[in-house]
């Protein structure tokens, strides 16, 4: 177990290094930030000073080495635009994104799992077919379009919930959160649904196919032969078996949701990391973009490790020591 975790941590360090290399050079290729940072009437001398101060006079590989050196000391660079450490900027925005991502996963699972199980338990029924057909919309319509429709129907047409911003926040352990105020909730709900829909559909379809398969297994028939009630068969024997793929998917999706939230945050003007990323890309604020990708990767890798640990807990046949990655 410890060995497994240790090995995974070392692997993660290499993944982070590789990612940093790719992003660093990619961001370099996008464009020269100096043009955006200095106003046209700055003197050539001032311009020189600025370039030197930002370290942009060095060749790219030297810049990368400087970046790595700072990284080793926990410094991901300072925003060109805001003049504050990039990490600080991102961490400020992280709670808003996490709030959105976690709520959307909760929605996806709490609705997708039961609906999928209902459909899987009686696949031939009309209810099941309705559920499965409905789920197709969840993942076949683009997130951007879904977001616009949500805004149009619920914010503009029905006027049930606001379409932009974060609403009132309160401080929870020093972090500003929306989900503890009524106004925050009303702001949170539409973007969370927008982010949840594709995963809701995914969890639903996984649960449906898993349930449809599990209910025909001999162990279900055997449980019936023991006189176990249907409710218990569904809750323990079937749910316990389909939880393994569902948890795996949730873990993997957690990482991609942080990335996907970029679209949702842009559509709903939600002040999270994703919105910061888009703004930073437009402003060619290299340190922020690089730091964002590094932090997102870090979250992704960590969650994957947690998923593997959960996997081993849910499926007693899995042995961590033997599994490679």
């Amino acid at each position: 177990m410890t060995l497994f975790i240790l090995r995974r941590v070392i692997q993660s360090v290499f993944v982070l290094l590789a990612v940093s290399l790719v992003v660093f050079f990619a961001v370099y290729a996008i464009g020269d930030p100096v043009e955006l940072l200095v106003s046209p009437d700055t003197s050539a001398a001032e311009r020189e000073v600025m370039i030197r101060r930002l370290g942009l006079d060095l060749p790219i590989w030297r810049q990368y080495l400087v970046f790595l050196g700072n990284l080793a000391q926990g410094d991901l660079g300072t925003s060109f635009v805001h003049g504050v450490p990039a990490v600080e900027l991102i961490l400020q925005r992280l709670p808003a994104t996490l709030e959105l991502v976690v709520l959307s996963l909760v929605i996806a699972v709490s609705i997708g799992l039961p609906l999928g199980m209902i459909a899987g338990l009686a696949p031939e029924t009309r209810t099941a077919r309705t559920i499965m057909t409905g789920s197709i919309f969840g993942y076949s319509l683009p997130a951007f379009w879904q977001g616009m429709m949500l805004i149009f129907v619920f914010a503009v047409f029905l006027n049930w919930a606001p379409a932009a911003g974060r609403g009132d926040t309160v401080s929870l352990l020093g972090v500003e959160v929306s989900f503890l105020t009524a106004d925050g909730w009303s702001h949170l709900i539409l973007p969370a649904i927008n982010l949840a829909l594709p995963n809701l559909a995914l969890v639903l379809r996984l649960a449906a196919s898993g349930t449809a398969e599990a209910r025909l297994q001999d162990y279900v028939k055997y449980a019936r032969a023991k006189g176990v009630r249907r409710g218990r068969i569904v809750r323990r024997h079937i749910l316990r078996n389909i939880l393994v793929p569902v948890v795996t998917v949730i873990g993997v999706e957690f990482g991609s949701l942080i990335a996907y939230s970029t679209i949702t945050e842009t559509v709903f003007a939600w002040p999270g990391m994703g919105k910061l990323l888009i703004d930073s890309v437009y402003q060619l604020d290299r340190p922020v973009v690089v730091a964002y990708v590094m932090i997102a990767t870090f979250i992704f890798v960590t969650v994957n490790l947690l998923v593997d640990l959960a996997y081993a807990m849910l499926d007693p046949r899995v042995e961590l020591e033997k599994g490679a990655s």
Partner: protein
Amino acid sequence: MNAPSPNAARPLLEVRGLRTVFHSLAGAYAAVDGVDLSIAPGEVVGLVGESGSGKSVTGFSLMRLVDPPGEIVAGEVLFEGRDLLSLPESAMRAIRGDRIAMIFQDPLMTLNPVLTIGEQMIEAVTEHHGVGERAARTRAIEALGQVGIASAAQRLRQYPHEFSGGMRQRVAIATAMLNQPDLIIADEPTTALDVTIQGQILHEMQKLCEASGTALLWITHDLGVVAELADRICVMYSGRIVETGTADDVLDAPRHPYTAGLLGSVPSVNAPGSRLHQIDGTAPPLSARPTGCPFRTRCGNVLPVCAEIDPPLAGPVPGRGWRCHNPMPERDAA
């Protein structure tokens, strides 16, 4: 046509005209076709036949566990006089696992891989009796001890993959015994195991049932096993009971050519593990059963009448009978 019950006492289980069909695109075919069975309290009955003869489907039909495309279409399953086939599902559930327990054919597939053995045994008790989990656990430990599983308390915390095939089958037997049922339907519970363990488990099971007065319907294609264990034998072919009688009568003086064929090369009825003699030919598919006697395509005694008329079950005394126009010559049971 129905031989009356051979048992003086009221039978525990009395099956009459049971018919279970499977629906397919080509129409329905009967896997169990008019089966009559009678089991007295505490009696051990062997249900013997080749693969595909309908033994497992018979067992599942008695438990009312036939799933689509299968369907029980006719007959009565009287358990202590009540027809199980007309009970509401909730009443049937209360009987399953409590009064009638079943051990499945494949020990590898029947335990849920992600639940502990303990949970799977304990639920069999708590779903029927208003006892706490601790009392149920104690009962499970006791039952595991009875089937020879050491350090049962620790074993309960383990998962099925940590048990060998033989151990899992013992778990299934212990689970069946948990509520001291009146009847256990054991569907080839030892075929997947090696011969030595088969013998052990067989012996233990026989002792346990004897001690608790539990009746046993032992499904197998191993005549050696049945000879050792059963009071009475029913031989099944193509969904029907073709011969029935006491173990001695059927084994020593078989009258149906099919039974005689099965016995043809059993080297010693005392050697568990000996398989049925291979009879020439294969059973016709259920969907294309021949007219008249279903065995006539493979029978050495076949007469012209066999293609015309399906012989009814008939015999000299209640509880002894066969379905044949031209039976094997009479012999004295040894």
